[in-house]
């Protein structure tokens, strides 16, 4: 039995295993076992299994078998595939575990085998579920050609398709399905009565007489005419209650609850999807959003299979690194600004921000004017020709699209003068564009609302302008429908009529213009804003147009293929790539903003505006929300008391206070954790220094003792001199053989 010693080396100078050093807890991260061909002979009879989570001590060929070691009692048994070993080693582990299992009691055996069986079952189920995923092959192809940044856009699109499908299924099964199956399930539907008052007059909008073909097209594109009195719009749902044999189905309540449910469901699903991303992003406590380590260690997309894509990825990484390094220098420059310069910069920024606000106000005003003009033109029903009629219908959409096209250009020009750091410039421009896109819908709705509630003699007799808008919800639904259709047409038209010719010009054109214009870049932020805009319209419009989610599902389905085609044929990826992680954060953040903005109009119209008396399920109520109190009052005493208590101010205030307390606690906890982390970091650095100091002292002691006792060579533990291949920065300290006697166990000195 050899006497163990620290830094024991064999004749050839290779480090062999050393139990003393092995006992250092940091051993596995400091010493890499060299692959030595003699390691087979050095295998100890005493096994020393290391149940490390990373198993890095076993990089070499030598392995420690675990016979005899009872370490498994100390740590849980991890599944074998989570250990970083070669297949042969894993097999050995498995047979060893099976042997050990046979020694266990039968209860444990059964427990372990069921655990294994359940894990296998879970894997199979997950495999089956993932094979059902939509567009798996296409997305894999895109990933291979363009990397994970662009991939995240397409998986976002897939997510929206699923979301819209689920929303449609929700609305369909709770609102449309009962009406459809009522005759078949022997249900008796009671309709809202026309009580003959002025408010409930609903002139039919179907065209009479000879209908020219292009009027059908107009109707299809604008949702009027023959489409108005269909399941498509709110106005068709005149059912009040359906009496099935066993139960009575309250349709207005179902309609309202389905609306609330789909908004809630969208919120939960988005938050769940972004939870992982948010957590990771919030943990980073650096002010740099993208750290260098992330860029270098996780910089290469290993899924790229295309040579061109690899070249592009390399150049974009280079560009990104250079820009980030430069940004560091710019930050330094910003910190060195003088006061005079700061004042000048702030003044410029103020002026430019006022200019931006002015531009936004101008756009909003033009949307307002366009909406009013369009509404009046539709109501006057002038016999214009086909094209003009369509243009009047689509005027708000056209103005919104134009505004959303011009303002990003303006913003990107302005930002150059505001002298921010490059990363902040990009983000700020993006925020401005997001704001512009999403508020333009709000402005449209506001101008519609002002039209609807404006009557000739104030106040309005029925709460809304029943003369012009006998069924105003259908009107709003039609506007949302038009926005959706127009959005889709624009996307298709831009791809076909702008990008495709551009590609042809750039490819075959020789003039300087072609070279300057360059090939179309697949800019992710703009594309994402487009589809978030569409989704916001869908959320707002579903209340007025219950089949809108189905239309949006089909729309996004086609957009996937159009964008994929555009990407493959027309575009090249952007020079400054969007990283996958920040992409997800950005996409879902913008989507949440869109959802929040969508909840607002829906809430206002449900709670505030009087619903129309001529159509829809809420005819018997003043506002749509009034269904709830009516239903509550029909419940039993107990339930009523409970619901009243839940909605009372006392409950709300105490709930709010409790939530605030919980939030403060969590914030305080996070702050405390941060402080502890900083302290631990400092401690680690100090420990490193301590270790270096101690090892230096050891070496000194070594050298002294070697000088004093040259007879040590005759002892069995003598070894040849060799340099220590202990790779740290203190390797330069050891030029001689380092070789320390193993102290007796009860010695006071210990390493």
């Amino acid at each position, binding site marked *: 039995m050899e006497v163990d010693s620290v830094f024991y080396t064999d004749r050839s100078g290779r480090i062999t295993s050393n139990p003393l050093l092995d006992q250092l807890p940091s051993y596995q991260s400091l010493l890499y076992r060299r692959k030595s061909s003699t390691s087979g002979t050095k295998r100890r009879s005493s096994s020393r299994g290391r149940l490390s989570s990373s198993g*890095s001590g076993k990089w070499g060929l030598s392995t420690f078998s675990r016979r005899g070691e009872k370490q498994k009692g100390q740590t849980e048994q991890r599944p074998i595939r989570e250990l970083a070993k070669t297949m042969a080693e894993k097999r050995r582990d498995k047979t060893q575990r099976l042997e050990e299992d046979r020694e266990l009691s039968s209860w444990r055996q059964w427990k372990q085998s069921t655990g294994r069986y359940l894990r296998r079952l879970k894997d199979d189920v997950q495999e089956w579920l993932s094979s059902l995923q939509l567009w798996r092959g296409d997305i894999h192809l895109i990933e291979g050609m363009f990397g994970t940044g662009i991939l995240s856009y397409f998986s976002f699109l897939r997510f929206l398709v699923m979301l819209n499908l689920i929303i449609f299924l929700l609305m369909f099964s709770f609102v449309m399905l009962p009406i459809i199956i009522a005759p078949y399930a022997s249900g008796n539907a009671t309709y809202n009565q026309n009580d003959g008052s002025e408010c409930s007059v609903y002139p039919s909008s179907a065209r009479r007489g000879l209908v020219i073909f292009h009027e059908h097209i107009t109707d299809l594109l604008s949702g009027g005419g023959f489409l108005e009195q269909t399941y498509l719009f709110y106005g068709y749902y005149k059912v009040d209650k359906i009496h099935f044999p066993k139960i009575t189905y309250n349709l207005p309540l179902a309609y309202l609850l389905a609306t609330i449910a789909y908004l809630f469901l969208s919120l939960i699903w988005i938050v769940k999807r972004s939870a992982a991303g948010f957590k990771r992003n919030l943990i980073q406590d650096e002010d740099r959003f993208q*750290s260098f380590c992330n860029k270098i260690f996780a910089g290469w997309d290993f899924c790229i299979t295309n040579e061109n894509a690899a070249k592009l990825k390399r150049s974009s990484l280079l560009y990104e690194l250079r820009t980030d390094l430069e940004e560091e220098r710019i930050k330094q420059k910003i910190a060195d600004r003088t006061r005079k310069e700061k004042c000048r910069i702030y003044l410029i920024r103020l002026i430019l921000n006022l200019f931006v606000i002015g531009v936004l106000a101008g756009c909003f005003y033009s949307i307002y004017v366009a909406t009013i003009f369009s509404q009046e033109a539709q109501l006057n029903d002038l016999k214009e020709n086909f094209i003009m009629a369509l243009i009047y219908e689509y005027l708000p959409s056209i103005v919104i699209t134009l505004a959303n096209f011009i303002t990003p250009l303006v913003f990107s020009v302005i930002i150059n003068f505001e002298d921010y750091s490059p990363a902040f410039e990009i983000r700020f421009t993006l925020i401005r564009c997001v704001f512009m896109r999403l508020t333009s819908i709000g402005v449209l709705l506001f101008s519609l609302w002002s039209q609807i509630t404006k009557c000739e003699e104030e106040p309005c007799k029925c709460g809304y302008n029943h003369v012009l808008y006998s069924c105003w919800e259908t009107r709003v639904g039609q506007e949302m429908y038009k926005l959706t259709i127009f959005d889709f047409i624009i996307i298709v038209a831009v791809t076909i009529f702008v990008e495709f010719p551009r590609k042809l010009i750039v490819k075959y054109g020789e003039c300087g213009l072609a070279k300057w214009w360059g090939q179309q870049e697949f800019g992710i932020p703009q594309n994402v804003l487009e589809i978030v805009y569409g989704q916001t319209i869908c959320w707002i419009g579903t209340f007025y147009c219950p089949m809108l989610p189905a239309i949006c599902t089909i729309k996004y389905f086609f957009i996937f293929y159009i964008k994929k085609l555009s990407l493959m044929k027309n575009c090249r990826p952007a020079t400054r790539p969007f990283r*996958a992680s920040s992409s997800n954060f950005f996409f879902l953040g913008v989507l949440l903003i869109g959802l929040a903005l969508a909840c607002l109009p829906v809430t206002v119209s449900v709670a505030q505006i009087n619903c129309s008396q001529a159509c829809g399920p809420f005819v018997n109520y003043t506002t749509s929300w009034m269904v709830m109190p009516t239903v509550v009052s029909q419940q039993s005493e107990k339930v009523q008391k409970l619901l009243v208590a839940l909605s009372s101010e006392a409950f709300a205030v105490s709930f709010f206070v409790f939530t605030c307390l919980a939030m403060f606690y969590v914030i305080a906890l996070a702050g405390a954790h941060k402080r502890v982390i900083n302290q631990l970091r400092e401690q680690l650095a100090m420990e490193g220094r301590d270790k270096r100091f101690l090892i230096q002292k050891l070496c000194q002691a070594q050298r002294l003792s070697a000088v004093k006792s040259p007879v040590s060579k005759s002892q069995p533990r003598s070894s040849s001199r060799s340099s220590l291949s202990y790779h740290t*920065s203190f390797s330069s300290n050891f030029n001689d053989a380092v070789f320390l006697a193993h102290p007796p166990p009860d010695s006071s000195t210990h390493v």
Partner: protein
Amino acid sequence: MGTTASQLGKDLLSEYQELTFLTKQEILLAHKRFTELLTKDEKDLPNTRIPMERILTLPELKSNPFRKRICHVFSTSEQKDGSLTFEDFLDLLSAFSDSATLEIKSHYAFRIFDFDDDGTLDCGDLEKLVNCLTGETDDTRLTPEEMRQLISNILEESDIDKDGTVNLSEFQHVISRSPDFVSSFKIVL
């Protein structure tokens, strides 16, 4: 235990399923792609070892700047020549698969980035790593000044015990906070 015939036995398949993160479909696909690389006479031998040059013709590895390192890390050959058996190949795919744990991925990533195989990432390793990422030719490299700035930034972020190198636990720590790693460290056939 090897792949003698062109079909995998059922127990072998389930054993591979248990020992790796791959699904049955993925194992079968890997087997198919592996046997495509074999020459006619090699097909009959058990446990054939494919030399590195042929492995590197796979499209998934062809454009990867770390392809040689990957082969070296997963190879169990005695001559350290980067050749892979089928089981090494499965280990490779398992570490790069979707369902592999972060620990496994970061462990193997560390080994791939450790160009001199000494157990830590020092300045030389990091410099080689950055050069692999940016490109091979001279005009696609960073200037020495930029390289120095970059490496000092990386060490500042990841070197906790301030010894000038990144060891495995520091690497795993920095990877656990890196949001892009899991999605980028992936190879799917």
